[in-house]
């Protein structure tokens, strides 16, 4: 029977699997497959498994619960192995790498930071900062909006200014939080966000991290918001960590 794979852990992990809901059919239990010092957390994946939205939550809950009890190497959602033997073979094949990853991840958590500008505040700030753009805006306003080509040309200039400001503000947020992190990595782009970055931080540094986030929010009040998630399992750092070895 194929197996849905959630993560790898140390074999000594407490693995509190009993009350966790699996991906897929209700009542499917989670089990651990061990090989020497490592374990894989799996559940039966029947033929034609088609994960639903609720399965994202199940997957996340499993990983969060286990991550809170010890380091895990999270799989990408939707990972399925053909059978138990294949799982064990992978644990054997990758033992050195997975053990190293778990060692480096121990005691660390992922925090994800997304930021989005309040659009009117951003545009207002850009116009206030740029006399040429401001003058052009006024001229178009005086002309009742201007022709469509004029609007497009002006809008394109504003779009460029917006892009530059988004890049700048992202750099500021990263600069503020990076000193607290072992690693940081940009996450996949999300619409309307000027930043989407994950930090791997010591679990003990979370209060400091939150304090810096609070300072940033104060500075950005009315202009932009930060949405901070975590502590999360280290989704963004299970290949990046190896790259820095």
């Amino acid at each position, binding site marked *: 029977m194929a197996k849905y794979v959630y993560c790898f852990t140390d074999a000594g992990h407490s693995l509190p699997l009993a009350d966790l809901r699996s991906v897929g059919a209700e009542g499917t239990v989670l089990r651990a497959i061990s090989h020497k010092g490592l374990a894989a957390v799996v559940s039966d994946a029947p033929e034609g*498994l*088609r*994960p639903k*939205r609720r*399965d*994202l*939550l199940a997957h996340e*809950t499993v990983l*969060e619960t286990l991550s809170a009890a010890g380091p895990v*190497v999270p*799989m*990408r*959602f939707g*990972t*399925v192995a053909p059978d138990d033997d*294949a799982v064990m073979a992978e644990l054997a094949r990758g033992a050195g790498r997975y053990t190293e990853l778990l060692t480096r991840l121990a005691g660390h958590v992922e925090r*994800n930071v997304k930021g*989005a500008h309040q*659009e*009117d505040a951003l*545009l207002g700030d850009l*116009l206030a900062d740029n006399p040429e753009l*401001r003058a052009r*805006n006024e001229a*178009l306003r005086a002309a009742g909006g201007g022709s469509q080509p004029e609007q497009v*040309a002006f*809008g394109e200039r*504003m*779009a460029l200014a917006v892009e530059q400001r988004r*890049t700048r503000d992202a*750099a*500021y947020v990263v*600069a503020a939080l*990076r*000193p*607290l992190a*072992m690693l940081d990595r*940009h996450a*996949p*782009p*999300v*619409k309307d966000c000027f930043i*989407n970055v994950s930090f791997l931080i*010591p679990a003990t*540094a979370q209060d400091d991290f*939150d304090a810096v986030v609070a*300072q*940033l*929010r104060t500075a950005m*009040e009315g*202009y*932009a*918001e*930060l949405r901070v*998630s*975590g502590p*999360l399992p280290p*989704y*963004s750092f*299970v290949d990046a960590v190896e790259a820095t070895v």
Partner: protein
Amino acid sequence: MTIMAQPSSSGGGGGGSAAGALYDVIELILDRGLVIDVFVRVSLVGIEVLTIDARVVVASIDTYLRFAERCGRLDLTGGRQPVGLPAIVGQITEDSAERKAKGALTGAGRAIADTIHDIVTDGRG
């Protein structure tokens, strides 16, 4: 559930339901995590995910027209408080550098100008 989108002072986000907080980590669950060549990825056709198709929108004529229209409607007559981000980040990184010197931080501490410069020239990495 330990995920939470911490409430921001400008509204939006908040502790909220687990599903609401899941929204902000969906792209991590789907696009990050370990990929093992010999294991397969099951079809995700059944998932209706709000943000998975929310890729960065490429600027278009519609975008430009929208910016022009919004700028035209802005009320710019009021006094403007300069956005405090550069100043606060300068202060934060100074504090971090001090603490690093005392051995309190393990992260890389560099002059803020160098960090900003590197980030801006490297793009979104």
